[in-house]
């Protein structure tokens, strides 16, 4: 069973985990004020993990409950708490924050009520995260 902070947010339906691009943040010298076109690597960007799947429920209200449970994990600035994301197949990522939850363009109402989604998690190293929250 996959989980985020120990919660089974996605287990109602099929879902798949994918890692985002692992890359350096690269900017030009012009952007840094040197006036040149040379490149500067400013360090590796934080990890991003995508969960793409479908929430499935037996009723309209049950689906709403599933959707709300995920959206509740989008915490407001000032109270964001990173947690561990686990894919249920042995892979875990620590210090992850849910930064986006995007639903498909419609709720599907067939024999079940369901909606597709993409949930985006990003890693935050603790020190960077604290600095970001304090605004300094």
């Amino acid at each position, binding site marked *: 069973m996959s989980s985020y902070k120990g919660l089974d947010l996605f287990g109602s*339906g*099929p*879902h*798949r*985990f994918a890692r985002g691009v692992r890359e350096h943040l690269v900017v030009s010298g012009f952007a840094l004020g040197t006036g040149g076109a040379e490149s500067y690597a400013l360090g590796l960007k934080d990890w991003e993990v995508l969960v793409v*799947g*479908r929430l*499935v429920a037996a009723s309209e209200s049950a689906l709403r409950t599933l959707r709300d449970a995920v959206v509740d994990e989008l915490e407001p600035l000032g109270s964001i708490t990173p947690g561990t994301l686990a*894919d*249920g*197949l042995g892979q875990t990522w620590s210090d992850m924050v849910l930064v986006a939850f995007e639903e498909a363009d419609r709720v*599907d*109402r*067939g*024999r*079940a009520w*369901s909606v597709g989604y993409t949930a985006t998690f990003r890693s935050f190293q603790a020190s960077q995260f604290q600095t970001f929250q304090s605004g300094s």
Partner: protein
Amino acid sequence: MLVLSPRSVEFGSETWPGVSAVAIDRRVTRSLVEWSDEGPHAAFADAPEVEVRVRVTQQLEEASADGPMAGASGSLSFVSAPGRSGARRRRVRVACVVMGVTHEVSERRAGVRTIELVGVSPDGGAADPVSVETAD
């Protein structure tokens, strides 16, 4: 569903004579088949959008200037009976809209009119456009 030589074929307030067959087809217009990280087989499938198509084949004995108008809506109603005795008679009703009227002409008969209709749910989506009940 295929009904040959149906009786009392009515559309709204009109009676359609000479109907030799009514075919009711169902097809999925939007399908969901999704996989998980667990293995190769689909983990979820559903048919959240389906369409009921009705084809009425009418044998014309003479030239006709009448015929249903494309876009006309109404209840298509007819009686089916599997055997010649009329036992197990069923009245079939389909709330539908005319989507096309075409004609074929041959030397041996005046013509064959084919009326294409699409079933619509009377309550906006949840109920089956097709109802079947025991005929009196």
